C-alpha cells in the first residue's frame, strides 16, 4: 500500500519505521535534506525534500495515488493544511497529527469532518491515557482494554516474593479461582508464548488477559495490593502533563505539577484549576522532598529531557514512591532505563504506533476492516488484536482444536454477547463474536490469517 508521511521528526520517523516494517511503500516528505538523507539511508523509502503544503512537492511524492497520507509535522496547522490539500489532490485517506489542547476539544470533530480527515492523532493524549490507566492499577506496567473495557490485558513484572515464581503455567491455572490466561512471557531479550509446561521466574515480564472484574480478583489472589494512586506528582508542565492532570483531577485525584518556567505555570493554573502547580526546578531533590515526595502514591516524570526523567525517577524510586513512571522517547535510552530498574516507561511515539498500524492494516485488508483494536506489548514483539467475526468467515462453526492454528498464535479471549470468556479447545466461533488474538512476530491483516492452510468444510 502506498503511504506518504509528511514531517519526519520523532513521531514521523517512528511511524515511517513501523510502516516500512509492515511492508508498505512509503514516501517521506520533509523540509530538511539531512533528515531525508538519513531516512532514505536507513529505511527502504523514497524521499522528497520540500514543504508538506506545497502542491508541486505533494505531486512529486505521488499524492494522487496514495492510499494513506499522514501529516506528522510539528505544527498542527500545517498538518491540517497539508491533509486538506492531499485529500483534494486525490489521497484516499488522511491522518493529521493535532496535539494542541486548544484544538482537541469540541472543535476537533468539526475540523475532522470539514477537512475530510480519516483520523486525528494526538500522541501526547494517547500517552497520557496510557499513564492514566496504569495509575488506576499501579501493579501493572501497562494496561490496555478491549471491547469497551469488557476485556483487559495487563503487563506485570514478577517480583521475587510473588506466588507465581517457580510455577508451571498449567498449575497456576488450577491454583487460582480467577479466570485468566498468561499470554506472553518476556525474559531477557526474548519473548515467549508459553505452553502449559513453561515455568515462570522472578524478573519475568508477563502479559495477562482477563475480563475486567477477574483482573481485580486475580491480583488479590496473587497478593498484589491493588490500590489506586490517589496522590500523583508530575514533573514538567508539558502537553502530556496537562492531559494527564485533567484526567486525574476529573476523577478526584490529587495532582501536583512541578514546572520550571513561571509563564508555563500560569498557563497550567488557568487550564487546571483543581491541580496544585508548583513553580520550581524539578531537578532539585530538596524541592521534591519539600513538596512531599514521600506522601505520593505515584511519581510521573514528563519533562522534555529523557535523561532528566530517568534520573529523577530513580531518585523517586529510592525514596520508596510506590509507582514511578517516566517518559522516555529515545529508543536508545529506553533499554538503559529498563536496566536501571525503571520498568514503567511511557512514550508518545510508541503509543501512536499501535493506532497507525491498526489503521494501515485495516485499510490493507481487502475483506474490509475487521480489526477492532490492536495493541503491541513487550516492546512491540507481541501484538494483541481484537477481531470481529463476520458471518462469512471460514472459521465459523469449527471447534478451535480442529483449526490448523499457526505457531505463535494464541486465542486469549472471546466476547460473546458482552460476556468475556477464556476459550478452550471445544469452543467454536460464531458470527458477531469479538476474538482477542495474541500473535508473536507476525503481521495479521485479518481474522482468517490465524490459520495456516485454508480449511475444507468436509474434513470436519
Amino acid at each position, binding site marked *: 500500500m502506498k503511504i506518504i508521511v509528511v514531517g519526519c521528526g520523532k513521531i514521523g520517523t517512528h511511524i515511517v519505521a513501523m510502516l516500512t516494517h509492515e511492508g508498505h*511503500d512509503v514516501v517521506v516528505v520533509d523540509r530538511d*535534506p539531512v533528515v531525508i538523507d538519513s531516512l*532514505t*539511508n*536507513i529505511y*527502504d*523509502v*523514497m524521499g522528497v525534500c520540500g514543504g508538506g503544503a506545497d502542491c508541486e512537492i505533494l505531486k512529486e511524492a505521488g499524492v494522487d495515488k496514495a492510499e494513506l497520507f499522514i501529516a506528522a509535522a510539528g505544527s498542527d496547522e500545517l498538518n491540517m493544511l497539508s491533509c486538506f490539500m492531499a485529500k483534494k489532490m486525490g489521497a484516499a485517506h488522511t491522518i493529521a497529527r493535532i496535539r494542541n489542547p486548544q484544538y482537541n476539544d469540541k472543535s476537533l470533530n468539526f475540523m475532522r469532518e470539514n477537512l475530510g480527515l480519516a483520523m486525528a492523532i494526538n500522541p501526547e493524549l494517547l500517552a497520557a491515557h496510557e499513564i492514566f490507566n496504569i495509575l488506576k492499577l499501579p501493579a501493572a506496567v501497562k494496561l490496555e482494554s478491549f471491547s469497551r473495557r469488557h476485556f483487559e490485558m495487563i503487563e506485570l513484572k514478577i517480583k521475587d516474593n510473588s506466588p507465581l515464581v517457580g510455577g508451571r503455567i498449567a498449575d497456576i491455572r488450577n491454583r487460582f479461582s480467577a479466570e485468566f490466561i498468561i499470554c506472553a512471557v518476556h525474559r531477557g531479550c526474548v519473548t515467549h508464548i508459553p505452553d502449559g509446561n513453561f515455568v515462570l521466574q522472578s524478573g519475568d515480564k508477563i502479559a495477562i488477559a482477563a475480563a475486567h472484574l477477574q483482573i481485580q480478583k486475580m491480583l488479590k489472589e496473587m497478593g498484589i495490593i491493588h490500590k489506586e494512586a490517589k496522590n500523583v506528582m508530575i514533573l514538567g508542565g508539558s502537553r502530556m502533563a496537562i492531559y494527564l492532570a485533567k484526567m486525574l483531577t476529573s476523577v478526584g485525584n490529587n495532582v501536583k505539577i512541578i514546572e520550571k518556567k513561571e509563564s508555563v505555570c500560569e498557563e497550567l493554573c488557568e487550564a487546571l484549576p483543581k491541580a496544585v502547580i508548583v513553580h520550581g526546578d524539578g531537578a532539585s531533590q530538596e524541592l521534591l522532598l519539600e513538596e512531599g515526595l514521600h506522601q505520593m502514591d505515584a511519581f510521573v516524570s514528563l519533562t522534555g529531557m529523557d535523561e532528566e526523567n530517568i534520573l529523577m525517577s530513580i531518585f523517586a524510586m529510592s525514596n520508596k514512591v510506590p509507582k514511578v513512571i517516566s517518559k522516555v522517547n529515545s529508543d536508545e535510552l529506553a533499554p538503559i532505563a529498563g536496566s536501571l530498574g525503571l520498568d514503567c516507561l511511557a512514550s508518545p511515539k510508541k503509543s501512536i504506533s499501535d493506532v497507525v498500524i491498526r489503521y494501515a492494516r485495516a485499510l490493507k485488508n481487502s475483506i474490509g476492516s475487521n480489526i477492532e483494536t490492536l495493541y503491541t506489548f513487550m516492546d512491540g514483539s507481541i501484538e494483541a488484536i481484537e477481531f470481529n467475526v463476520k458471518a462469512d468467515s471460514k472459521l465459523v462453526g469449527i471447534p478451535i482444536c480442529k483449526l490448523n492454528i499457526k505457531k505463535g498464535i494464541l486465542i486469549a479471549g472471546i466476547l460473546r454477547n458482552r460476556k468475556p470468556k477464556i476459550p478452550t479447545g471445544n469452543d467454536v466461533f460464531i458470527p458477531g463474536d469479538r476474538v482477542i488474538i495474541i500473535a508473536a512476530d507476525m503481521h495479521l491483516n485479518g481474522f482468517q490469517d490465524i490459520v495456516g492452510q485454508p480449511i475444507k468444510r468436509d474434513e470436519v
Partner: protein
Amino acid sequence: MNYKMVVSMTGLILRLEAALLVLPTVIALIYRESTIVSFLITIGITLGIGIVIKLLCKTDNSIVYAKDGFVIVTLSWLCLSAFGALPFFISGEIPSYVDAFFETVSGFTTTGASILKDVEVLSKSIQFWRSFTHWIGGMGIIVLVMAIFPTSSGRSMHIMRAEMPGPIVGKLVPRVKNTAKILYLIYIALTLMQIVLLTLGDMNLVESIVHSFGTAGTGGFGIMSDSIGSYSAYSQWVIAIFMLIFGINFNLFYLILIGRVKNVLKSEELHAYIGIVVFSIAAICMNVYHMYSGFSEALRHTTFQVSSIMTTTGFATTDFNTWPSFSKAILLVLMFIGGCAGSTAGGLKVSRIVLIIKIIANNIRKVLNPRAVGSVRFEGKMLDETTRRGISNYLSLYFVLFFLMFLVVSLDRFDFETNFSAVAACFNNIGPGFSVVGPTGSFADYSVLSKFTLSAAMLLGRLELYPLLIMFLPTTWRRAKNVV
C-alpha cells in the same frame, strides 16, 4: 565491518553467476562445441563455493552501512570477474589467466578493451559469454540481485548506490526492489527491441543478440575483427541509435512510461547530452567529409563513431585512427565526458560536466562580486554544499588516479598517444583507444603489470572510484569489537 553480510552477499553473487553461465552453456550445446566442458566446470566451481558459503555463513545481522555497501560491491565485482574468466582460461581459448581476467573485467565493466588479436577464431559460446558479461555489467549485478532476491535490510540503498553511476542516485519508487525491477525491465525491453530490429537487417539471430548485448551494456565486444564495419548501413544505423539510447539516464525512460514526458523534455542533462552529440557529429563530419565517398557515408560513420565513443561503447565501423587530429581530439574529449548519469555508459557523466561548469561559473561570479550569494541549480533543484564539494572532489580524485595509472602504463614501450588513450579508454570504460590500441589493434602486447593496472582502471571507472579505493584503507577492515 559486517563481515558475515559481505561474505554471504558474495556467495549469493557466485550462485547467481553460476545461473547466468547456463546461457552460454546452452549456446555451446546448440553449436556442439567442446567449450561446454569449461562452462560446466566453472558452473561447478562457482556453485560449489556459493553453496559452501550459504551453508557456513549464517547472517544474524543484516545491517549494512555505507562502508559495507562499498566493500560488498567491490568484492562482488572482483569475484564475478575472477570466476567469469575461468571459461576463457579452461577452454584454452585465452591461454594466460591474466589475459582472461583482463578480458572478463573488460566485459563486466562494459569497457570492451580486448587482448585478443583475432576475435573471429573464438568459438561461438565463448563469444556469446564475452558479450553477455557486457549485458550483466551494464545495469549491474547488484541491481540484478536487488531485483530478484528479497532483501531484509532497509539499508540496501547503500549497496545500490555504490553500483549505480552518477553523482546523485535516487529511487524511482519507494522500494529498492521495485526500483531495481523497473530498471531491469526497461533494460530488457530495450535490448529485445534492438534484437528484433537487428534481425530484420543482415544479421542472424545470434549475431543480433551478441551485438545487442554489447550495445545495451555500452560494452563494445564484437565478433568481427573490424567490429561492425562489415555489416550493412542499416545495422550500423540501428546500433548507432541504440547506443545513444542506452547512454540516456534510465530514470527518464521511467518518466516517459508513467506519462511525465514534460519532465523528460525539461531535463538539463538530456539537453546537454544531445547538444554535445550534435555538435561533435557536425564538427567531425565537416572535418572528415573528404575521406568518404558521399555525405551519407560520412554522416553514418561520424554518427556511429561519436555515439560509440560518447556512450563509451567502443564499437567501430571505420578505423578512426586515420582521421585528422581535430576529429581525434574531439573523440578524446568525448571519451572523458561519457554518457548520462544512471545509464549503462561510463566516463565522467554529462551531469557531472554540466555541474562542474556551473560550479566554476558560480565561483568566477564570486570573484567579481565577493559578497554575492550564489546558488547552483540543476534540474530545477538547488544544489547543496555537500553535493558540490562531492563533485569537485570526484573530479580531482579522477585526474590524480588517471595520471598515476598513466605513469605506470608508460613503463611499457609504446608511444605517448597509445598509452594515454589506453588509460583513458579503460578508465572511462570505452575500449579502443588510438594508435596501437585503436579499433583494429588490441591490448595484447602490454606487460602483466600494465594489464593489471588497466583492469583496475576499468573497475575504478565502472564503480566510480570510491568503492575500490576504500578497499585499500586499513580502517575498512577493522573488525567491530563488542559485537553482540
